């Protein structure tokens, strides 16, 4: 148990003082967040708060201008999506980032295809792996040979999730994972997120939906206008206090009853 205890205390991800500027605008201005194994950290904030920009520095989609990223306590340099993947960081983008013209197995293995000894694509092996993966993630999934453009929103989401979890991700970034889904599919994705957490994966969850975040997260980091308002334990706060952070940038201790009244 002692071993578990210490490994629990090692931070999986630590992002220190991250800055990203577009032109003269600081989209992310000195933000620090962290993540432990088997933990879900909700990242919330209004439109343009800088959540997605912050997280893109971790997924390699857009490198940070300055700041440090540590994985398992070690400083790392993430310049491209490939760098992030090598470190076990997988991302499910809000846009899903699927190539619509190719089929589900091709998308799951995009950039990491299974090949034969002679370097030919092993389509059967990839289809087989995708079928097994879907058995776990979405047993109703059947479209293994059709281009993903012909799939429903939920099925496309399944493909994006399958791609992220197949390669033994240790760190998962989910940007609005339920935005495009109906209620039943949303519930399925929530179950899946909990299941992944129980497997010891650390998850950054970005969402507009405060209830989604409250339901799933262990801790919540709130951003406003490119800056971190604060990070709180979910058990220590209520929805109103988090809303006050999102909208007014006030930490729970600073919030007055008048502020809460204004929110409603």
């Amino acid at each position, binding site marked *: 148990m002692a071993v578990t205890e210490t490994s629990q205390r090692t931070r999986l991800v630590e992002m220190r003082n991250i800055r990203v500027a577009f032109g003269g605008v600081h989209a992310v201005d000195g933000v620090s967040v962290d993540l432990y194994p088997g933990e879900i950290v909700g990242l919330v904030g209004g439109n343009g708060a800088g959540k997605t920009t912050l997280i893109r520095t971790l997924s390699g989609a857009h490198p940070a201008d300055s700041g440090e990223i540590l994985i398992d306590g070690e400083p790392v340099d993430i310049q491209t999506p490939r760098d992030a993947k090598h470190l076990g960081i997988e991302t499910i983008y809000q846009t899903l980032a699927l*190539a619509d*013209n190719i089929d589900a197995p091709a998308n799951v293995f995009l950039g990491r295809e299974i*090949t034969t000894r002679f370097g*030919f694509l092993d389509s059967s092996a990839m289809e087989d792996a995708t079928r097994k993966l879907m058995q776990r993630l979405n047993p109703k999934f059947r479209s293994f040979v059709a281009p993903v453009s012909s799939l429903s929103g939920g099925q496309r989401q399944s493909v994006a999730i399958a791609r992220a979890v197949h390669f033994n991700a240790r760190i998962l970034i989910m940007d609005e994972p339920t935005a495009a889904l109906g209620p039943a599919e949303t519930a399925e994705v929530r179950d899946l997120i909990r299941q992944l957490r129980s497997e010891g994966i650390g998850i950054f969850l970005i969402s507009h939906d405060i209830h989604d975040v409250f339901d799933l997260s262990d801790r919540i980091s709130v951003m406003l206008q490119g800056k971190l308002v604060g990070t709180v334990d979910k058990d220590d706060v209520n929805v109103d206090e988090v809303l006050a952070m999102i909208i007014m940038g006030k930490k729970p201790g600073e919030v007055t009853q008048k502020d809460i009244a204004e929110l409603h």
Partner: protein
Amino acid sequence: MAKTDVSAAGPLPETAPTGAGRSIGDVFRAAEIDARLVGMILALAAIWIGFHILSGGIFLTPRNLWNLSVQTAVVAIMATGMVLVIVERHIDLSVGSLMAAVGMVMGLLQSDWLPSAIGFDHPATWVIALVAGLVLGAVIGGFQGVVVAYVGVPSFIVTLGGLLVWRGVAWWLASGQTIAPMDSNFRLLGGGSEGTIGGTWSWIVGVIACVGVVALQMQRRRERARYGFRLRPMGIEVGIAAGACVAILAAIAVLNRYYLPPLLAERRGAPPGAQISLGLAYPVLITIGVTILMTVLATRRRFGRYVYSIGGNPEAAELGGIKTKRTVVKTFALMGTLVGLAGAVQIARLNAAVSSLGTGMELSVIAAAVIGGTSFSGGIGTIPGAVLGALVMQSLVSGMVLMGIEAPLQDIVVGIVLVSAVAIDTTIRRRTAV
């Protein structure tokens, strides 16, 4: 109640769709046959039969079909590369001019530069000239690709510049003079009465092709069985193999029925009255080889997978960790290599390199790819489709020439067919898209 339903006249709304209710598309999907390709083959058959009737029975003759096969080669070779360029949402307008520049270098090599070093008609001349052409094409194509991918200039602009630059370079290399003659071995690449593999070898190639088709099918079936995937019905499997083999052997039989003219046969020492089959011409053999290689590259290698994913969603490809810029450069380099190969065939056919080589050919190549089902919105297109597209285009031109239709009208017809083909394709695609 059930009995009443069954005996009731008219359609039964509650019955699940059965075999009778399946559309043609479903049948094709079950058989895993590319419906678009079948449609194109049918269209080609219609064009051929139509011209045969309209021309008074001179279109579907061994002689005309043999010529058609050779005339199609140059555009078809380049169209296989253009498919990948267009799939990647780019375009290459420089291929005609690049062909002239590279063709001129290959021409000068064998008529001017190499003879002064190793003598005219040296056995190594053709290899050196050909390899130089392929490498030069790859380098220039790759350079244009670098400007597109890394500098970020739109490919339309880069290759429009290339269209002007390489044409000028082709003229400047020999001050506009015609470079002739070509090396006698090199000339074989262009076909002609000498540049064929003859009747016997054509049959051997045909048989090897049939064995290859069957072996590929069996291998694929074994692999699917190994993973317990659904297999194609055996009847369809056998039907496809038999159909392919019959088509291959029929094509060889037709080409083998075009004989060397008696005068040339006698000059080669054949007894009077002997019939020497021409069979497959080298440019046709090259086209077939390129088609197979490019199809493998497009569908069975990582490179092809990346090209299609970039075309489908460039951002997704980038986020998937694909080196998209490098892939674009490779695609343009490959296009350039194919231009070099096509240029070699063209100057060998003409037995001369001229600075006007391939003028306007970029448009034929793009048209062939597009008629073959390549979509300008990216991500969609097949290599065999483009080759068929080239064959359709050449068939139209050849048929109209046989019918004595004057050139301006030919252009009008080809233009209308191009737009109609894409219009039909787009409509079908929109209807079948789920």
